[in-house]
């Protein structure tokens, strides 16, 4: 028994399309159900990283200009150092505690993403690593408090030079330099370009 080949192809095409449509429908339903939850998770993870810098702050808001456009969104300060965004941290009386900078720097094994706080008295509040792909056991120790704590209360006018005023992670000079340099360069850039920040200090 022979069937018309064109008819056959059309028939197969219709069958495959039905499968695809059913699949796409199922996916869009799942997507719309899970979407609020996914967005919630993303918001939570950003907030968690900012809370790690200013645990007492009650709200964080993106720093904007007069037109409500975000300032400092994905600005490359120098090759490898990127300011992702700048937030203001306010306490429950909505008075300013400090600024949170989300930035990244090119490390040994890829980008190191981190946040840190700048206090109004021009000192670093705390540094926290969001994401990194450094060598396990070496550069990956960048998240440890033994390394990060030395930035706390450091004045932004300090020199930030590894092996001088910053003790590197054991045998991971490149990673240590990447983070130190990332903080220093982004802070310098912000102080130079952000009027509001310098005014208040």
């Amino acid at each position, binding site marked *: 028994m022979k069937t018309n080949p064109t008819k056959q192809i059309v028939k197969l095409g219709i069958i495959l399309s039905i499968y695809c449509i059913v699949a796409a429908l*199922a996916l869009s339903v799942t997507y719309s159900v899970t979407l609020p939850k996914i967005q919630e998770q993303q918001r939570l993870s950003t907030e968690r990283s900012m809370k790690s810098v200013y645990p007492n702050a009650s709200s964080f808001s993106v720093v904007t200009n007069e037109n409500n456009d975000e300032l400092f969104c994905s600005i490359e300060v120098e090759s490898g150092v990127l300011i992702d965004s700048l937030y203001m941290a306010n306490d429950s009386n909505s008075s300013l505690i400090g600024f949170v900078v989300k930035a990244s720097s090119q490390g040994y094994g890829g980008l190191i993403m981190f946040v840190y706080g700048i206090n109004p008295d021009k000192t670093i509040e705390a540094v926290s690593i969001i994401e990194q792909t450094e060598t*396990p056991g070496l550069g990956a120790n960048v998240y440890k408090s033994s390394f990060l704590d030395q930035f706390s209360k450091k004045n932004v006018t300090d020199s930030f030079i590894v092996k001088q005023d910053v003790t590197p992670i054991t045998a991971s000079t490149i990673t240590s330099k990447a983070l130190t340099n990332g903080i220093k360069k982004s802070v310098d850039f912000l102080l130079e370009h952000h009027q509001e920040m310098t005014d208040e200090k």
Partner: protein
Amino acid sequence: MKNNLLKIFTKGLFIENPVFILMLGLCSVLAVSVSVINALGMTLAFTFVIVLSELTISLIRNWIPKTLRIPIFIVIIASFVTILQFLLQAYLPALNKSLGIFIPLIVVNCIIIGRIESFASKRPVVESILDGLGISLGYGIAIVLIAVVREILGSGSILGIQLFGSSFQPALMFILPPGAFLVIGIEIGALNAFMKKYNKKVCSR
């Protein structure tokens, strides 16, 4: 009958272990076996996709034209993988992050398409689910066995709990790529040696 179902379930564990014996789906096995937690998470993700895909395809196996079977299989697997991605992003974002690209890559895992082609597209639903569960368990056993060795030797911990004092120096190479190849090689060798001994014993009896 019961015996037969049991056989379908257990064959994936050792005799037809997808990783150690058939050596399929190695990419994800080697990549995520740096820690036992990742290994368990990957097994969970894999189980979700293979069981649901086998179930679905076994249900509709009479409505799949033979010439279109591979594209339809792929569409169904890919749908379940995408659903899995949504679920992970919504409920287990940390796991989603640490498994990274190997979640969407479950789509091209040769184990799944192989089981569907050779089993689920021909067998009834219950058998297909059992087959999926058995294969997942075999996959899980393999990936966890590799991860246990790599995590102990490479990080000195298991499930993130430090096993030794601070003076213990883990050999970092085991959590680097060469460690993955080395550990799976030695484990397959050991398994072969074990099977040989076991088979000989069976024969002599």
